[in-house]
């Protein structure tokens, strides 16, 4: 029964995409079949398109894994958005502060750690507020999202600006993550970089942590039966903080895709939206690291496909399709919960 849910969710998600796209394209006055083909070709039909789909999926793997991780402790980390922005900021500041001759073996780990730290500090703070003050994490993380958005806007336009450009100083060369078009010629020109590989590895590691480390088992125990966990001596407070810290770190690491992979610096708007889409990815892929990656690729493909058909139908059509996926999957999950004895 439980194993069947991801499969069923995937089928329903695909059906929802196809159905809404057909209706939306038809309503906007174009031929559905040809537009759909165009979108599919844009997302998967060429090396470049595929690479761009995967590039758009990369931050979603990070944030999807982040939200899914917190969910295992039955914590709803809706702050992946702000944690991602904090990761962008932290990695850009550290990367730019290093001496230009810093070798990559030092620069890259430092910048990755900075991104993780940026997100973890926000997530951990929300966890601490939940554990010590009883503030619900949905409220605190939502508020922190707004705080970080305003803070970064001000920093990028003010103190961290480089002359006339509204972005930060570039990070050192040693910190940059390799673009995969160096290895695969067909990916030429795409933004796809090794942050994707790191994201997939981190998603799997986070999953294994939940079953192979005491702290991870404690997180699942707390998420399943908080009162039983308490009676066994599992610390509710420290487990809550731990779950939110790790979740925040994963969301913060999404910043590495933008700063170390794509741009080389941070600017206003970088990373905006992937935290919230990450919630949808986690809903769709909860329970399995591979389902999270697949869900991220689905959303990446819709974003890339939307660009490909932009000339014929508004890209909002793809936003509608995304919303339909979330609604459909939520309905399937609610339904299968009811069926459980």
């Amino acid at each position, binding site marked *: 029964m439980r194993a069947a849910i991801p499969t069923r969710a995937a089928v329903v998600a695909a059906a929802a995409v196809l159905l809404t796209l057909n209706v939306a394209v038809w309503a906007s006055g174009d031929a559905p079949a040809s537009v759909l083909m165009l979108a599919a070709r844009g997302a998967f039909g060429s090396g470049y398109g595929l690479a761009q789909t995967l590039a758009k999926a990369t931050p979603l793997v990070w944030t999807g894994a982040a939200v899914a991780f917190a969910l295992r402790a039955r914590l709803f980390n809706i702050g992946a958005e702000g944690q991602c922005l904090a990761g962008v900021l932290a990695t850009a500041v550290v990367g730019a502060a290093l001496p230009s001759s810093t070798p990559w073996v030092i620069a890259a780990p430092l910048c990755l750690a900075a991104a993780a730290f940026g997100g973890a500090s926000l997530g951990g703070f929300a966890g601490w507020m939940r554990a010590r003050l009883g503030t619900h994490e949905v409220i605190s993380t939502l508020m922190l999202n707004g705080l970080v958005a305003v803070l970064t806007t001000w920093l990028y336009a003010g103190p961290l600006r480089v002359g006339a450009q509204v972005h930060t100083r570039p990070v050192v060369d040693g910190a940059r993550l390799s673009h995969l078009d160096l290895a695969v010629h067909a990916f030429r020109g795409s933004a796809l970089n090794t942050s994707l590989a790191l994201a997939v590895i981190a998603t799997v590691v986070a999953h294994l942590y939940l079953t192979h*480390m005491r*702290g991870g088992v404690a997180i699942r125990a707390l998420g*399943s039966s908080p009162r*039983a966990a308490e*009676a066994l*001596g599992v610390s509710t407070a420290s487990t809550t903080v731990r779950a939110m810290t790790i979740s925040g770190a994963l969301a913060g690491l999404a910043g590495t895709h933008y700063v170390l992979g794509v741009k080389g610096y941070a600017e206003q708007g970088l990373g905006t939206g992937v935290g919230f889409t990450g919630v949808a990815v986690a809903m769709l892929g909860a329970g399995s690291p591979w389902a999270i990656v697949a869900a991220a690729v689905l959303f990446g493909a819709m974003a890339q496909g939307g660009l490909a058909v932009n000339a014929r139908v508004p890209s909002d059509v793809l936003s509608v399709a995304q919303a339909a996926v979330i609604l459909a999957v939520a309905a399937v999950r609610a339904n299968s919960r009811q069926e459980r004895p």
Partner: protein
Amino acid sequence: MDLSLSSIVRICGATRALDGASLSMRAGRVLALVGENGAGKTTAIHVACGLVAPDSGEVRAAGRSLPPGDAAAAIAAGVGVVHQHFMLVPAMSVADNIALGAEPRTGPLGLFVDRARVRREVLALAERHALPVDPDARVESLGVGERQRVEILKVLYRGARALLLDEPTAVLAPGEVDALLDTVRALAADGASVLFVSHKLDEVFAVADDIVVLRRGRVVLAKARADTTRDEVANAVVGEGHAPLEVHARAASVEARVALELQNVSTEGLGPISLRVMAGEVVGVAGVEGNGQRALAELIAGLAPVRAGVVRFDGRDAAGEGVVARRRAGIGYVPEDREGRGLVGELSVAENVMLGDPEVAASEGRFDRAEAARRAVAVIDRYGVRPADPWAPVHSLSGGNQQKVLLGRELARSLKVLVVAQPTRGVDLGAARALHEALREARAAGVAIVLISSELDELRALSDRIVVMRRGAFVGELRPDEAVDARLGALMVGGS
């Protein structure tokens, strides 16, 4: 009203919860449905009242076939269920609860509930069936017995003429049980048909006209009460070759060492109380539920704060210690709330057993899955847990098997003190016997046991002495041989 189930098959996953079972309730008669846990009793009720549709078979009310899986049609036909877990809204009044969903309307367009009429009808119904209730009292202020009366009135209010009572006595004190049995007889005398589900043969033989025993979804015995005996029914319930539960001769295992001492201790809803339990002694705690037993258990386990008084384990002051320190010191806890407090439902048996070790639950490092499986297999083999799969999630186990895992987890540690509440509630006879045996062995090994139970037979069978709790205090102490139902009952409910 007659209500019959014929050749019902209901498949749940891999098992046949009902496998061709037929039973027939007749107007004016009480039919007792008996069987172990998982025998299909509750499923039969769910099928009869349209909560679930059978895979095959037919339900007939007063000779007419009911549409399968249609609860509204079943209610309209006069089928009423009092579920094992009450379905009342605590913040609403008795009258509002009884009428909920079936309120008479008044005013333009029927915009208002005719509460005066509800109140009148509830009083008349209560009068007629001798079920005294205060229609204006809020349900949250009522005791268990009163809530049950409200539930019964609720189904009568909807015009039920076939009443299905799912283990109605499980939650009641001895005096309340007698009153319920009287009510059941009166309802039958009034022309209703009643299905009475119970584990307890005393009650069954006191109230039933007909007896049906279910085992693994099949009817293995269906006779009029006059034509059968308790031994025959007991054998049908458990299958052949089981001895009945009996009081074992107690070995003198009580050591002259105080393992647990409470002195004038109080916490929320409890005390001040004093209690000494020696190593190798079982102290039974009797009482109507909700009289401080849970607070006592949680206090000893370290889960309720000690407001005042002294708590000592082996002579060492432990009042300020939390749950981890207590578990490290050898305090075990088997709470009555098996899945909510005792076990982590979504985790596997192995993970649950491993987390029972406070060094694992409250520390960092690798979670040794091989070791977890090894410990789980030890519990599974020792207590015969089914399925014998250490990686099965606990919520997929039946109640009896969960209880074996829970008790096995606690007894696998080297315990000094064990608090165990309702160890065999909702557990079938075979499992109950294994659990009792495990508790006896722990006692022989020198564990001091505080046994909280609403089963008086269980208390008498296991305890060295029995204390009675009422309103958060100990109101009496009896030896097992002097603890007859009448004396215990009087102490529990505050009689003479």
